């Protein structure tokens, strides 16, 4: 791998990683970095790679990233050199239909606090509160990415309390509902991947237009 070259966090879409990797930032401790985060490789050491995070919540932080797998002779990194990203994804929400590009999904929306307008889709967060364990089981209609929520905020909004997420309906949110009788994992998995491969700025994945 080349030092100072840009890479992306990848190889973490399996059910073990659920779209996230753990890294360590000095003075912050352990943090979670989502799939597709752009980074710069500073140096490769025996047990870790030192990276500079170029976008998202930890932009400009230096982190230590362990290897995906390693033994005495070699190591396999989370970093991938190429990843196709869409410059500016525009998601449209009309009624109970969320459309990104050519694909649409049925969602549940709480329109009491989600008004018409344009919202910025932020980098995802990994929720820490406990969720129904069935939400993570794909054979029961769940999704390996169920713990990932995408914040949506209007311009100049200080505190974000609205998200695009999977599971149960919550206030002001856009929800791909969990349905144990239906392969809802397919819906959320593809929403997750579409959103995370969008890039508007280094803090925003794209735009959500609520009609």
């Amino acid at each position: 791998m080349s030092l100072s070259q840009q890479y992306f966090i990848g190889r973490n879409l399996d059910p073990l990683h659920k779209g996230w990797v753990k890294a360590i930032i000095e003075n912050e401790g352990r943090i979670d970095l989502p799939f597709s985060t752009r980074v710069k490789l500073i140096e490769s050491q025996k047990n870790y790679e030192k990276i500079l995070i170029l976008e998202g919540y930890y932009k400009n932080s230096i982190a230590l990233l362990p290897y995906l797998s390693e033994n005495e002779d070699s190591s396999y990194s989370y970093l991938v050199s190429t990843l196709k990203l869409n410059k500016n994804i525009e998601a449209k929400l009309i009624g109970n239909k969320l459309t990104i590009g050519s694909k649409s999904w049925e969602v549940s929306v709480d329109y009491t606090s989600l008004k018409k307008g344009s919202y910025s889709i932020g980098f995802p967060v990994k929720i820490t509160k406990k969720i129904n364990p069935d939400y993570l089981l794909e054979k029961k209609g769940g999704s390996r990415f169920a713990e990932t929520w995408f914040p949506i905020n209007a311009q100049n909004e200080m505190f974000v309390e609205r998200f695009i997420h999977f599971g149960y309906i919550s206030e002001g949110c856009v929800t791909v509902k969990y349905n144990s009788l239906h392969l809802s994992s397919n819906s959320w998995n593809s929403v997750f991947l579409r959103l995370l491969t969008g890039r508007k700025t280094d803090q925003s994945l794209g735009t959500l237009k609520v009609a």
Partner: protein
Amino acid sequence: MSNFSNWLQIGDPYLAIAAIIAINLIIFLFYHAFKLKWPDLYFSVNNMAAFFVTVSFKRYLVFRFAPVFLFSTIILGILMKDQTVNLSINLGVISLFIHALLSNGRAILELLTNSKRIKVYFNFGYQIVIHLITFISLIFLGFFSGLVAKSAFIVSITPSIQGIADNIWSALLTVLIIEYLQTIYKEKGIDIDQVFENSLTKIDPKILKHIDELSQALNANPVLVKAICLVESIQRPKWIRNVENIKAFLRLTGTYGIMQVRVNKPISDNESVKMAIEKYFSNSKGIRDQQSLLDLIKKYNSSKSYADLVFRAMYYIDPNSAEYPG
């Protein structure tokens, strides 16, 4: 203690106390459970007795006397197996006298003292009479339960104290064993994702890197190649591959390496990766439709179940690479 028990003619005082406590406790627990389970059917002896006697005398009899008679008879049947009929009768009477005192006797006292706990639905005198009749009936019921407890039928169908103890131990041991087994085997069914996870960690990082480099060079689908590598690794772990290399000394053609390529000499895992990609998977990048992927896989291994496993592995590595295998 023994003089007192002789006077009461209740034999062994400890057995007598045990019988009295057991009968009253079980009757109490029964009504308590009934109250919790069917609150709309339950009525307290204190404040609704008269009401229900008026509404349905048959129901009152069933509710008030049947369970008491049943429990008393069974318990006396167990405890009085080796005792005399007189003893059984005496204990029946005493047990149900105590029960009547604690229930209807208490209700009478509360009525007489105008306690707020009791509701007077009907004529005060009528309620007192109902309670008195019930009280006396229970004593007679005690007599009959003691008598019936010593009948041949009850003696034959009730267990002995030793039998009860044996059964309790057996039940306890069975429950403990089942709980233990359930804890051990809970969710121990084979989860294919767990198998993939375990297997992936065992693949040499060099091989994974090699797959990435060669896939890029030969325009192969790296997820497909990794999935096949994963499935092969599960089916033939490294130690088995090492044993198979012994075939080479016998100059036998066979499948070698992590990708199980057919050659006439042993090859390393990396070499097998190169050969497999060159022969089967070059220019597979960008192929996403299931049928085309299936055709590719079947060229490598014609088994349908093998292909299903490869699709599962692909979905495991990257859900974007294949349709949900179901």
